[in-house]
């Protein structure tokens, strides 16, 4: 069904208090609506509250306030039915270091036993690209392979929603691209994917929609192409005239350049036309520019 909500969050808040550090507001009132079948990215710098938010949605953490519904259930009030809810979600945590002494296929096929409607473990191992490492011990895997195994364990139960917390941290560029393809395929199978990342290019490459989170607040939700009004931002045109630099902003840069060209009778000295890059917009949003 189109536009059906997979995750719905209203006014979510969470504050950590510790004796050593006093209290720190991790999540300061977040609203989110994730539609079934989309890849939704939560983008933000380290410490912005991404993991806290996701772990509340996954049922790992209590919240202080607000309403949360994941697949129609409140993760903080699952009661005796919690298995049925967990049966429908898949979780890829930020960092894991377990089951070192087992092989890839032993681990994946074992986890299949936990679910009522698991996928075939061989085909899951194939999908995440670990065919060659099937019989290898987990301790011998590289960081990227380890992460692929984490995804395999996240999807073995055939989940409707897959949570991915900073899935490609520490990957080399080639491994990241391969990983992105894997995630897109999972979306194309009809799964909803919620991922957190602090990489702008990852959100841009993968997400159908992005929420930018800064200091526990969402500053914008949009498609990657429209982020920060990028699509409508004015272009800046600059050139050299009478020995000094001239600059104008315009919604119609091509027309301005044509006028200038006519004025100068051809080439315009030191002409540049700049649209703000996504990176500029993002850095401005998170207060780094």
């Amino acid at each position, binding site marked *: 069904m189109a536009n059906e909500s997979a995750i719905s969050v209203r006014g979510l808040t969470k504050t950590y208090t510790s004796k050593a550090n006093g209290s720190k507001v991790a999540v300061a009132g977040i609203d989110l609506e994730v539609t079934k079948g989309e890849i939704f990215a939560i983008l933000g710098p380290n410490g912005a509250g991404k993991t806290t938010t996701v772990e509340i949605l996954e049922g790992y953490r209590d919240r202080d306030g607000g309403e949360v519904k994941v697949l129609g259930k409140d993760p903080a009030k699952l009661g005796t039915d919690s298995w049925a809810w*967990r049966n429908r979600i898949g979780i890829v945590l930020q960092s894991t*270091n377990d089951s070192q002494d087992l092989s890839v296929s*032993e681990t994946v096929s*074992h986890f299949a036993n936990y679910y009522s409607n698991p996928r075939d473990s061989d085909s899951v191992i194939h999908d995440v690209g670990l065919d060659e490492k099937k019989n290898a011990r987990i301790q011998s895997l590289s960081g990227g392979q380890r992460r692929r195994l984490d995804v395999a364990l996240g999807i073995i139960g055939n989940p409707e929603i897959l949570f991915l917390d900073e899935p490609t941290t520490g990957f080399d560029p080639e491994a990241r691209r391969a990983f992105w393809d894997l995630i897109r395929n999972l979306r194309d199978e009809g799964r909803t994917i919620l991922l957190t990342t602090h990489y702008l290019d990852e959100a841009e490459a993968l997400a159908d929609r992005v929420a930018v989170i800064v200091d526990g607040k969402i500053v914008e939700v949009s498609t990657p192409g429209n982020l920060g009004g990028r699509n409508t931002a004015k272009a800046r045109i600059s050139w050299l005239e009478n020995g000094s630099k001239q600059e104008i902003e315009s919604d119609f840069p091509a027309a301005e350049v044509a006028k200038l060209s006519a004025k100068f009778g051809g080439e315009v000295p030191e002409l540049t036309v700049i649209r703000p890059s996504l990176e500029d917009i993002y850095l401005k949003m998170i207060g780094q520019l």
Partner: protein
Amino acid sequence: MRPNIIKVGFLRGGLEIKQFMRQRESVVFTLLFPVMLLFIFGSVFKGDLAPGVTFSQYFVAGMIASGLVNTGFQQLAIMIPIERDFGTLKRLRGTPVSPISYFIGKAILVFTAMIVQVGALMAFGAALFGLNLPNTTERWLRFAWLILLGSICSTILGIAFSAVPKNGRGASAVVSPIVIILQFFSGVFFVFSTLPQWMQQFAALFPLKWLTQGMRSVFLPESFATQEVAKSWEIPQIAIVLLVWTVLGTILALKSFRWSDK
């Protein structure tokens, strides 16, 4: 439909055993440490405690009983906080698996390790120190239920206690002293009836004293029962104490068990 909790527990048991067997250090420690202790004590104390009862014979009973405490309670109360640190439990928490399945898996691991450990201890004792093995079917049966119930009791208490250490690094320092003190108080290293009365009474509150006594009833001649503090093996009392602790431990474990750090 939900996968069967007990079946998943047994599958977890298989996986736990596989992981255990692949950690050479833990296998060597679990299997060889009791044998080494028997070798040391058996070599030092050569005398007889009673006609036909060597110290080794007495000590093997204590070693098997404390093996149950080491392999179950001590091992799990240290290992589970480490599994929390490594994220093993956090990952499980995110799946539909029941804590009961996890508990069953641990109990199967402990029971299996015990069987192997007891086998090694008896073979070594019989070969080098003239250990007499149980000589009646009744004794073998009693031996079997003591190992089974002892494993379950020790496992569940280890799980319950695993909530106490804050993390894996500190776990051993919290758990090991408790086990060592109980071993001294419960008549593992010394003849129980020669211990001060307050020590005996304190030890009687905990399962190890009763397990040790039960193992003596399996390995020592019937006549030795008169040398016990109660002048009898007190078999029904042993069963009751172990069952009470198992029930208590289960309630505690279900209440206190944490999948991850707070």
